[in-house]
């Protein structure tokens, strides 16, 4: 009997393994449903008013003056205003940094202002610097609101005018005066990662997260292959270890590619994500799929049982994703965390996606990232193959 051609054997292994994976319907939840749900949920939370300071306000006065102030704050594009009725609620939101400042308009605000007294608004903040920045924004509004009162009081003190006369005079004069205008012009291009499409960062970051996490999960299938004796039976056939390894590796690689294509397609069709130049996108997908393949094979080769693979694999995948910028952009973390993050392949993959999606880069712009990912993936695959080969030959 002659041995069947190698390619045919490898293809048969790929086919069998893919059938085993696709028969696991709960697995499909992690591959198809979970990534889409996560993209929707995370995308929805980062869509709100980018670039405005989130500010909480509690109006304990409810007078015409306090309502005018709240309305002016609400109308200001620099402020993303949230109203509160309870001081404890406001304080909790300040401490969780949901709002950068909590402005309290005290009872008697309108009355004191009308009586010509100076009123003090307290702005609670968790961080003094940020609190001062928020205070600056609020003060721009209060200065404008208070300027007529201020001018009138100067006239009363300086010219000895009666209060009513001074106020009338000021409001008459103010009507003819055109206030100093402030214009805003931006320089350069916004490199913000939320940009116009809030899904543009979430979609690629979940691609990276799920290709990796599900590659590890498919790695668990490999443990079953070993445990159930499928591997040993294959070894009994006239097939070389090399062929089995190629077939096993190709399955994982194909699987990672399918997962990537699915998220790219969903991102494009459901969330209108412009992934960038096709060739570069394909190259990045292939390079990171190689990383996923290597990691999955390694887990499959090293772990003793599926439970162990799951209990260690999932936290590790989540931790690497966090370090690598899949849960939040690395541009907001301290420099040391950026350096640590780049020890993960995830960070390099995310750099690549940012270059393609946000900076309009091409294949040449992500050459370094591709190189690092291929090196990473290649090393993982080689190590995993060596361990697996030894295990297969030893029959464990």
């Amino acid at each position, binding site marked *: 009997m002659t041995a069947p051609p190698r390619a045919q054997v490898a293809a048969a292994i790929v086919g069998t393994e893919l059938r085993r994976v696709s028969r696991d319907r*709960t697995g499909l939840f992690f591959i198809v449903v*979970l990534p889409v749900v*996560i993209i929707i*949920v995370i995308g*929805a939370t980062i869509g*709100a008013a980018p*670039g405005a*300071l989130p500010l909480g306000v509690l109006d304990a006065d409810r007078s015409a003056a306090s309502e005018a102030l709240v309305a002016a704050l609400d109308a200001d594009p620099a402020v993303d205003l949230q109203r509160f009725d309870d001081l*404890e*609620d406001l304080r*909790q939101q300040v*401490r*969780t*940094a*949901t709002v*950068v400042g909590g*402005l309290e308009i005290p009872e008697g605000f309108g009355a004191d202002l009308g009586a010509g007294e100076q009123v003090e608004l*307290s*702005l*609670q*903040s*968790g961080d003094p*610097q*940020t*609190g*001062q*920045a928020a205070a*600056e*924004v609020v*003060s*721009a509004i*209060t*200065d404008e*609101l*208070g*300027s007529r009162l201020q*001018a009138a009081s*100067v006239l009363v003190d300086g*010219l000895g*005018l009666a209060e009513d006369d001074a106020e009338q*005079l*000021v409001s008459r*004069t103010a009507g003819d*005066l055109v*206030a*100093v*205008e*402030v214009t805003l*012009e*931006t320089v*350069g291009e*916004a490199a913000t990662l939320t940009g116009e499409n809030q899904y543009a960062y979430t979609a690629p970051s979940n691609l990276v997260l799920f290709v990796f996490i599900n590659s590890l999960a498919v790695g668990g299938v490999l443990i079953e292959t070993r445990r159930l004796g499928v591997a040993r039976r294959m070894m009994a056939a006239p097939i070389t270890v090399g062929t089995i390894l190629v077939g096993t590796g190709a399955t994982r690689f194909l699987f990672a590619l399918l997962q990537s294509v699915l998220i790219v397609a969903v991102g494009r069709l459901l969330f209108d994500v412009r992934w960038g130049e096709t060739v570069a996108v394909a190259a990045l997908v292939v390079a990171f799929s190689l990383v996923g393949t290597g990691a999955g094979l390694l887990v499959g080769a090293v772990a003793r049982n599926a*439970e162990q693979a*799951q209990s*260690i694999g999932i936290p590790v995948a989540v931790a690497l994703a*966090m*370090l690598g910028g899949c849960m*939040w952009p690395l541009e907001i*973390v301290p420099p040391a*965390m950026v350096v640590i993050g780049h020890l993960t392949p995830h960070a390099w993959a995310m750099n690549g996606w940012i270059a393609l999606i946000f900076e309009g880069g091409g294949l040449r712009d992500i050459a370094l990232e591709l190189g690092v990912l291929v090196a990473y993936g290649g090393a993982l695959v080689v190590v995993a193959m060596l361990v697996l080969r030894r295990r297969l030959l030893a029959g464990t």
Partner: protein
Amino acid sequence: MRASATIAALELRRRLRDRSVIIQAVVAPIVIAAIIGAAFGGGFSFSATVGIADQDGSPLSAELVGALVGLDEEDVPITFVAVDPDDPAAAVRSEEATAVIVIPDGFAEAATGGTDVPPLAVLADAGSPITADVTTSVARRIGAQVDLSRLVAASVLAAPVDGDETAVSPELVEVAVEAATNAVAPIVVEVTEAGEPYDPIAYFAPGMAMLFLFFAVGVSARSLISERRDGTLARIRAAPVPSSSVVVGKSGAVLVLGMAAMTTVWVVTSFVFGADWGDPVAVVAIIGAVVLAIAGVSVAVTGFARTDAQADGLTGMVAFGFALLGGSFLQPGTMPPLLAQISLFTPNGQALRAFTEVGAGGGDLLDVLPAIGVLVAMGLGTGLAGLAALSRRGVA
């Protein structure tokens, strides 16, 4: 009773011997929370360098620039620098300043001469919208100050002094303007400390602990199925032990394991990372209630799954689904309103809200009693439903 205790002790010994439960339920949440803490622990602190471009070159504008550049107070989030007035945009492009306020040519002359004042221009880096907003506010406050002087000057000129308008001397205007410059604003904003910012570790550690607890607890619940398959359950039944003892014993073990794991996470993050979870009595009560809820859900999952593998997959779905909908992956308070409503139907969402109320809002046991009630009800409801399903199949 003794039989239950023996079964509980045996289950605990078996679970602890498998180190993966410690990795999953204790190490993983601590490590992941530490990563989040390192990424966000510094907190958001606003600071910026803002340039002043004096194109006016007047004594007034020079004074303005001098006053701003010379500012040297504590907690001032903005550092002002004088930049080349001929090309203010270059200062932004070269990152010498994130934004520049341009005092236009003829500003002082118009401001003191009673004509319309040319606008103050703000040039800001497109990638720093918050700095742009804060700088615009600074410019608006400068404008408001100038407007106040103009308003006072115009009012003085229009004032009927003893019925003779020619009696207004330039000196009088100057004195009035001077008074306006030194006048205090009628509304001042005072920044106050809202208390220590809520440590992200105190939020994400319980969030992650709950996620992984589903997996750790699920293994014990599933052991009911595997023990039936392996025949150990039948052997226990052969002994004079009521069948409820098995369920009681395993449930007891799960509750002890879950409580111990989450309490360890609490103690370690408190002492090692200094994360303040809040009132200890309330924290322990929430931990107990949420462990009960997770155990109940795990029993229900086991009850409705037909095979071991199906239970495995379902556990993953439920764990990630609840974590996602409950807000375990989101910053506290950033959930969109609809999701915030949905989150309350998950044990994770209820518990996280309670943990936030205790940790950030300074709440105590009384404040979180409603949440604890809901969690206990969730645990008992799902647990009993699961037990009913299991007993129908002869497992319990």
